């Protein structure tokens, strides 16, 4: 086997491992949202190709307000859906669209765009 072939094999396998690690196994950064004076846990989520931040930590039992700002017109992210709560919101581009929730049971609850391609997660502790 020629040197270039060995290099391509090693390179390809390394790259594949990197892809798998980066997308599946690496630790995602979560943002902890503190309750404001009013007792509401409020966070701003930027929507552009994805949700930033996409993993948010909340305390259970206190009202949650997520302010989505969709900074793109790509139709993909037009809807944001919270399937666990049967809630959805249509995100008008460049507008702040609030979604209010109150989660009493600790756990992990996903949210996503209409097609489920863009995802985020609420961790309730």
């Amino acid at each position, binding site marked *: *086997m020629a040197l270039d*072939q060995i290099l*391509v*094999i090693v390179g*390809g*396998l390394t*790259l*594949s491992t990197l*892809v*798998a690690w*980066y*997308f*599946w196994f*690496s630790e*995602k950064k979560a943002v902890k949202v503190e309750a404001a*004076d*009013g*007792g*509401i846990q409020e966070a701003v989520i930027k929507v*552009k*190709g*994805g*949700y*930033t931040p*996409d993993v948010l930590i909340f305390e259970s039992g*206190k*009202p949650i307000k997520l302010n989505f700002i969709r900074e*793109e*017109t*790509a*139709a*993909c992210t*037009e*809807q944001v*859906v*919270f*399937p666990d709560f*049967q*809630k*959805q919101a*249509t995100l*008008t*581009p460049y*507008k702040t669209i609030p979604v*209010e929730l*109150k989660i*009493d049971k600790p756990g992990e609850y996903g949210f996503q765009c*209409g*097609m*489920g*391609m*863009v*995802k985020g997660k609420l961790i309730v502790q």
Partner: protein
Amino acid sequence: MVLDPLCGMEVKSPSKYYIDLDGKRYEFCSESCQNKFALEPNKYIEKMKKIEPSYRTTNYGTEKLSLPINGLHCTSCINTIEKEIKKLPGIKLAHVNYATETAHVEFKSGETTTEEIIRAIKNAGYQTGHSTLKIGIRGMHCGSCVTKIEKELKQKSGVISASVDLGTESAIIKYIPGLIDTKAIKNVIEKLDYQVFETSGVKTEEKPISPSGKEEKVKEEPVDENQLAREKEYKTLMRKFIFAAILSLPVILFSYPDLLGLPAQFQKGTELLTYIWLGMALLSLPVMFWSGSQFYTGAWAAFKNRSANMHTLIATGISAAWLYSTVAVLFPEIFPSEQLADVFFDVVFVVVALVVLGMALEIRAKGKSSEAIKKLIGLQAKTARVQRDGKELDIPIEEVVLDDIIIVRPGEKIPVDGILVNGSSSIDESMITGESIPVEKHEGDEVIGATINKTGSFKFKATKVGKDTALAQIIQMVEQAQSSKAPIQKIVDTVSGYFVPSVIITAILSFVIWYVFGPAPQLIYALIVFVTVLVIACPCALGLATPISLMVGVGKGAENGILIRSGEALETAQKLNTIILDKTGTITEGKPSLTDVLTTNGFSENDVLSLSASVEKSSEHPLAEAIVNGAKNKSLELFDAQNFNAVPGHGVEANVNGRKIFLGNLKMMKKFSIELNTLEEQSRELADAGKTPMFVAIDGKAAGIIAVADIIKPDSKEAIIQLKKLGLEVVMITGDNSRTANAIAKQVGIDRVLSEVLPEDKAFNVQKLQNEGKKVAMVGDGINDAPALAQADIGLAIGTGTDVAIEASDITLIKGSLKGVVLAIQLSKATMKNIKENLFGAFFYNGLGIPIAAGLLYPFFGILLSPLIAGAAMAFSSVTVVTNANRLRRFKAK
């Protein structure tokens, strides 16, 4: 404290400045107000009347406040809120009603303010409901005008906050509807000598002031911003597509000079072609970074979040093709053989063009999928003509409050739900119930908001407003169902989490395999395969498959008066094999009507009926009502009865037109020794048929039998036949005795009857059937049958008028017909079939496309896909999914 009729200020009574007029004393804050009032008293009295009703300030300075509260989840929340409010000074009473989600507060106006109460509720962790008004204000010149208006507005009870912006000449006012209305707010501003105009957030151009000095109102139709955004996105994508598509033509031409037989000077190796290729490398930059900009921004945003999507795939694919080609043009010498220094600019152009076109078409198609909900939202009336203080006012629908009397003229839309109090009309309710024939409505009947009044004028009392109206609830239910997940989606969710990175890994590994084991030129093949795999994979088709069909299916249901609660309900509904129908109110009308009049001894049918009805007019028994209505329907004359007497357990007796009438059961006839002859036998036959017979005797002689029964709805029989055709076992459940029950069952063609079931045992009977291993649906009303509906795999509630959000039901039928049940099941089947088609298509496409793109067929058949074809396939696969879902829009009951 009294109010100055001019400036609205609170004035200590008695004031130095006052005018007595028509026996009423008007007090003022200053001499100037007094003088102005004296000049045109009527103008200000009028004005005062307009403003006054919205305040609730009493003479003692106690203010009453009703605040809507959002997001009350539990009864314990109530205590938290009440406690928080009571902490404030001057609170006399604080009471939160869980059912109406409203806080009722009484407080001394001097010691605390509405704003502080709202803050207290916020501190407890809740939000108060309020309306926001945006209006334009003209005539402001300086910052002090702003402060003046803001201050004045904030003083008004019901105004939560007011922020005036000098730059845009507008104000945003948050207020509590019911406490103050837009008219009163406008009045406040106008009284300060500013002009108010409607605005939609855009500064309107100065309009010439008309001779009357009044500003012409600029009214703008509210526009759906999302729709506009979608339109804009579509247009942008189309421009991007056209740009890339036009440029791709010459690019294709010069990419295959040998294949297309171009003249010798354009062939590979010539200097001219190298320059052309260089030009193509530059030309592809705007295509990649303008036409394909969304791929890069989307991919980067996702990458930062450690996720990957369609954009990642396309961006990687076209970047790889471009990089290779550019290197090949600029540094052909680094390639071991000349053959390898080839270019793939055509891939960049064509893939970008096609995928962008696919995205544009998808937006168009998706717009159609959500049409049903848009239609529902569009049904809402904008204004209502209400009667307040003896005057008719046109007000925005948001300001209609409970118990308002609303006037509706022919051809107008009924603004909210209510009860007709005066007049009658026929009303087209098709938009809500799906029933195409207009419904006659009389006093006491329920009217539904958003339906259209056809013929007569009438007045009705508002019983449900705002988010409680049937339409608002329908919209909410449909939106909830559309955002719920069908269980089938779980597979997709699992797959889609792994999909894109798996495709990237597959592409890398395919590259390696082709490079190591592939035919020469290896590098070229490896690159083509790498790009093709990335481009052909279509995660969107997979992700769209279920939600888009669900959206169309649920929307279609709503159009036909069928409200499906969730994707799960829809998926379960098509797996049913047994359906239990409650008899009363579901198969039958649920109230007795006259069915038979038999006569004997030479009495005429009309005499028997009209005399009996005259007697029963004084009775309040439901059977009596049926007889009276029966007589009225035949336009028979009714007389006044004398000496009316009810004999408990037997019947009634009375004198009508000098004749003695007995009406009752067999015991009654025996008691008065009436000879019945054949009537007794006839009565038994009627009873066997499930009817309730009553004997009539006139002047001591038997006259006939009047029978009433809870009659079967006209389309029940046909619906049951259709249910059976759908392969369902139809079971009837009723509290009636088995004789009556069987009689009804026979008429409608039901074989299995569960009779003499106590209401509380219905749920248990449902469970018994479930224990037989059946998937059971229960159809009944939402109140009495709630436990049975909840127990069944699918509970279908027959709606009654405007109560549509029936908690226990999975599917609510707004129109009270069994046909709706058939339609609901057919629709569920059609939707699930559509979802499965989509899922199959998406899985099949990706499952087959990716291996072929990777070159799996090459060793056997020598087939290798071109990245151009992959781009086309990818672009149209998601459009196909949406188009297939849109086929459901044409769903019709079979």
